[in-house]
């Protein structure tokens, strides 16, 4: 089946102009916001896009919607070129920016929706059905007559998401849809997006800093940093790519010197309790056997790596050594990355 989102070698280069020294001469500097990104998304998939601030995520979304033209490369959304067919594409996509509203600030939600209906030429029956569904699932009923500027962030976000879906878009882009929302609003938004994807097979591409969004919504993750695609695959694969570790917390019968163990790394000790790290994809059983054979144990527990730590380590590593597509090459940069990573692991409970 033809992919609904296609990127091939997409670049976006900004010319940043500034004064050179004290003279009037202007200096031009090229900033590569997006530096050769290629991936495709089949219809109906939910893809999460993560990356540190300034990685090029938002620029990429802007190119996929036709707001910005790429400097090079090829983009096709629903088979259309966003640069040349912006208005035609606009009818087939929905966009939500977490940071700003696409609604009319001074108007009640109901008026904004009505305007959307007429601007997108949505068939009245279809519009009524879509609005009913959104109002019910996003609990917008009491908010319909409130001007957008009076809505709370969470209410506004729900209002924005509904507005983006009234014209039955085939693709839904969400740029940080849960930013600044409380836990309840976040989970409402996530439930709704899951329902939309399940019932209408809407393709969803979302950027986020909240990894719970990714864990609850996406089977596929795309990691972007420095304008490049650093990882593209399943959530589970992130652990392997990020060389994540599990932590073994051992309570010995008495205080011991740091235990040396093949396949595990000593992290720290606190009285009789010691923390040992071992690769996430290795089995814990041989370690436990070895430990129990040589030391008197009171208790032990295993902590799973948090996705946050995996990502944090990826970002840190990419800054040190560039891409890490080949996990075998990772040990080169390991010493720098392990410090931050290990602290992260021991802090989480």
């Amino acid at each position, binding site marked *: 089946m033809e992919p609904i989102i296609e990127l091939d070698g997409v670049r976006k280069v*900004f*010319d940043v102009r500034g004064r050179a020294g004290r003279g009037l001469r202007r200096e031009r500097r090229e900033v590569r916001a997006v530096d050769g990104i290629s991936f495709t998304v089949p219809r109906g998939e939910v893809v999460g896009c993560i990356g540190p601030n300034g990685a090029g995520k938002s620029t990429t979304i802007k190119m996929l*919607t*036709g707001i910005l033209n790429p*400097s090079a490369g090829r983009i096709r959304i629903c088979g259309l070129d966003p*640069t040349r067919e912006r208005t035609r594409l606009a009818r087939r996509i929905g966009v939500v920016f977490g940071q700003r509203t*696409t609604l009319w600030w001074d*108007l009640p939600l109901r008026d904004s929706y009505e305007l959307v209906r007429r601007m*997108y030429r949505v068939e009245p029956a279809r519009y009524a059905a879509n609005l009913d569904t959104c109002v019910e699932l996003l609990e917008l009923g009491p908010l319909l007559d409130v001007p957008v500027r009076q809505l709370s962030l969470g209410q506004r976000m729900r209002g924005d998401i509904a507005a983006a879906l009234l014209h039955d878009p085939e693709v839904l882009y969400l740029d940080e849809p849960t930013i600044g929302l409380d836990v309840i609003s976040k989970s409402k938004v996530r439930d709704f997006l899951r329902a939309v994807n399940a019932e209408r097979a809407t393709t969803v591409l979302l950027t986020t800093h909240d990894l719970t969004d990714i864990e609850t919504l996406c089977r596929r993750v795309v990691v972007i940093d420095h304008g490049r695609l650093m990882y593209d695959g399943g959530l589970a694969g992130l652990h392997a790519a990020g060389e994540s570790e599990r932590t073994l917390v051992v309570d010995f019968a008495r205080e011991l010197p740091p235990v040396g163990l093949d396949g595990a790394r000593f992290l720290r000790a606190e009285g009789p309790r010691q923390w040992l790290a071992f690769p996430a994809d290795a089995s814990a059983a041989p370690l436990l056997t070895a430990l129990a054979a040589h030391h008197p144990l009171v208790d032990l527990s295993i902590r799973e790596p948090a996705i946050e730590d995996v990502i944090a380590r990826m970002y840190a590593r990419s800054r040190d050594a560039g891409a890490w597509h080949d996990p075998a090459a990772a040990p080169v940069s390991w010493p720098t990355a392990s410090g931050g990573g290990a602290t992260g692991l021991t802090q989480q409970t």
Partner: protein
Amino acid sequence: MAEPRADAFPADTSRARASGADGRPALVEGLRTYRLIVGMWVRSTMAYRASFLLTTLGNFAATGFDFLTIVLMFSRVTALGGFTLPEVAFLYGTSSTAFGVADLLVGSADRLGRRVRDGTLDTLLLRPAPVLAQVAADRFALRRLGRILQGSLVLGWALARVDVRWTPVNIALVPLMLLSGSALFGAVYVLGAAFQFRTNDASELQNSVTYGGNTMLQYPPGIFGRELVRSVTFVVPLAFVNWLPALHVLGRPDPLGLPAWVDFCSPPVAAACCLLAGLAWRAGLRSYRSTGS
């Protein structure tokens, strides 16, 4: 992938923009969008009728002070630059009305710079409609009718009092002046907006041309320096809003001594300015989509 820079296709981009979504012409689509958005703002304004009446009255009074100044001046002098009060009122009425119409219809376009800065322009690019129509219709302020009302009242008074032989040509020149004048001021607004894609300071410059130009055109050209009159004839052709055709109606000599047919050139000059503004807008939007700033 050795793909050429997408920016290297100005011809293709313009073709895509010339016909809007689903093959409808961009102009038709733009007018439809404009009508939809304006309609919504008018309904929203009318929901608070008292507030609308008060703000319109305020607009009426604020713009009326300009004319009050002129009336006060005439309590001391009998002529201004050789013009009597009804003649100055004729200039005032034509310029104010034309400016008021442009201000009402496309005045919101001067918020473009702010939209670029706060990023809300992006949301307009997401909609299946021409951006210029959305920008011009944004926050359509019906209270600006106050200026039009005030200008046309003064114009009505001037037409009744001014000493003019109402030949068919002179009669035809009045509505033609108002139409061309509105189009000229509108073109300045759009041109100003187009430059705001590039620099934020453009809105100050544009205000000096629109508001400043309007104030200048309310007075006889004779009281200004020849260089200024020349520049608003040949550089920013605001003299075609009312000065040149009004001089013909009033039977006054033109301070620049231009041939008589120039007095009838307002419509083609206005059309040329609109075209220029449209091209500048298109170039501005294209540059925004390339640079994102």
